[in-house]
């Protein structure tokens, strides 16, 4: 805004503050910078009241009022020399504009108060500060629909295993389910291949079967997810351990496949999340279940240890602790509170699952005789 190299000669700053003895509920302070005969005015309107206030300020300088403009259109709230805005409760709003004074004019030759606070009152209808985000979002939506056109969405019969972003979208439940079921029922090698493909796909962030499964899972066809779970549960121990090994080798990629718990528990957890979405049960605090569990425990331990160090520490040790990490006292407290809630929920959930696991009895011998 200002050309600082020339400022010392051509600019002059005048600051006009509300006298200290007044504590008006809404007050105005002004700062004027004159550069090359143009006054650059900054106003700060402070609202000390607990409700939003509509205010009107008027430019009193000699010369045309030049408000900020975008593509030739004056910024919102400006009409000639007048600006109306709403100052939220307890906040300060800044207003700025320019006014060419002509020649070597300085502010002192114009008027004493360059800006007048003309009116303060309740915000007019349609001027509410609370709706601001909604108005901005509505404005943003008018920028243009960015979704892919309907014609670009392929028909559901497309090949589900196709690479790239186009061929995977409309996979039917049956096709997706077959992929899942096949992966579970085939021999160890094929299982490993399928799981690797899954992790590779996730790694590259492309489509492929894993993503289809995600899309399919989150559609209301939760019975497909149940089928996947049942198939995973009923596989032999060999397949389980093979998938387990594959999971540990894909640790560096997809974080949910990287669960250090066993595959069955992972799928169970995913299923229950989907179930809880559709049946509106929330067995966990805030619906958050850390995956992988071990990594989460490590990170929570670090946060809790930091909080412990600050709990009864000396001023020096507490200050040193906050210097070393990115937390502020408030964010650390919030983070540790979240950890406490999540850890208690995990403990409850783990106990419940362990009880259920203890009560199961897979009829291995009977099934072997049948097979």
């Amino acid at each position: 805004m200002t050309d600082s190299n020339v400022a010392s000669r051509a600019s002059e700053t005048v600051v006009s503050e509300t006298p200290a003895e007044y504590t008006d509920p809404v007050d105005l302070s002004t700062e004027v910078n004159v550069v090359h005969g143009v006054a650059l005015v900054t106003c700060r309107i402070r609202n000390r009241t607990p409700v939003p206030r509509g205010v009107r300020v008027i430019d009193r300088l000699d010369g045309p009022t030049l408000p900020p403009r975008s593509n030739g259109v004056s910024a919102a709230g400006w009409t000639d020399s007048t600006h109306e805005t709403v100052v939220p409760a307890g906040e300060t709003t800044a207003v700025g504009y320019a006014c060419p004074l002509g020649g070597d004019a300085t502010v002192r030759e114009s008027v004493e108060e360059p800006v007048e606070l003309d009116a303060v009152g309740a915000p007019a209808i349609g001027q509410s500060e609370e709706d601001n985000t909604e108005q901005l979002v509505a404005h943003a939506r008018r920028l243009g629909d960015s979704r892919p056109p309907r014609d670009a969405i392929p028909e559901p019969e497309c090949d589900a295993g196709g690479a790239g972003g186009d061929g995977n979208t409309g996979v039917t439940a049956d096709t997706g389910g077959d992929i899942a079921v096949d992966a579970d029922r085939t021999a160890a090698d094929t299982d490993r291949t399928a799981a690797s493909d899954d992790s590779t796909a996730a790694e590259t962030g492309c489509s492929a079967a894993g993503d289809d499964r995600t899309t399919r899972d989150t559609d209301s066809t939760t019975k497909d997810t149940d089928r996947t779970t049942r198939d995973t549960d009923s596989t032999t121990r060999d397949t389980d351990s093979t998938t387990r090994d594959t999971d540990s080798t894909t640790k560096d990629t997809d974080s949910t496949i990287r669960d250090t718990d066993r595959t069955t528990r992972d799928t169970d957890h995913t299923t229950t999340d989907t179930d809880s979405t559709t049946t509106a049960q929330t067995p966990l605090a805030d619906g958050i279940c850390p995956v992988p569990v071990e990594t989460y425990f490590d990170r929570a331990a670090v946060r809790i240890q930091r909080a412990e160090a600050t709990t009864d520490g000396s001023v020096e040790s507490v200050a040193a602790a906050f210097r070393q990490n990115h937390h502020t006292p408030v964010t650390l407290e919030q983070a540790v509170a979240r950890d406490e809630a999540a850890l208690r929920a995990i403990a409850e959930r783990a106990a419940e699952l362990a009880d259920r696991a203890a009560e199961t009895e897979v009829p291995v011998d009977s099934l072997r005789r049948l097979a």
Partner: protein
Amino acid sequence: MILAVCGGKGGVGKSTLTVELAAALDAVAVDSDLGMADLPHGRGPDLHDVLAGRAEPAAALRTGPVDLLPCGRSLSGARAADVGRLAETVAAITENRDAVLDCPAGLRADAGVPLAIADVCIVVASPREWALADALRTRELARELDAGLVAVALNRASEAAPQATVRDALGAPTTVVPADPRLAESLSGVEPVVERAPESVAARAIGDLAEAVESCRPYCDSSRE
């Protein structure tokens, strides 16, 4: 506090910096690039599902090296997602948590809505002429949508990056983030660079950006907290 990481051109490193800044701020990274998502994904519901009303925001939240709300990769998912629901989605997960939104390239609704929601933004530019022009357009859009520009990240910079030029053009403090090969792994789900190499130049640059964002906290809308 909601931070949007934006930048008009694809490939300047918005997603990588989103993940790193989320780690530095202990915030949730939201992949709001609905058409070209690239934050780490996995099984389970994602932002496409949430924006199509098929899942609750909390169900799509994933914890890991960085907590994140990932987005789907399919065209049909992008088609069904209603970007207008992003505001309530982000509000649902930021009751006592900050969020960092990864914005898409371009100047359409999918780029605008995250900026409209955000309190502050960081523009990511790479030191090439075409990237700077797009950064200017994004900066203008951010101003139009009331997302205060906190800082510019001059990403993938080698020596002699035009820091002063960018700062003067965009009107915000500019931090140079050097081209560090470890940053290329941030989107693979491994630990972010700010945690596994906190003394590196790249990590310290990201720390500076995070500090600039933190300094805006007192000025953010108190009703959001």
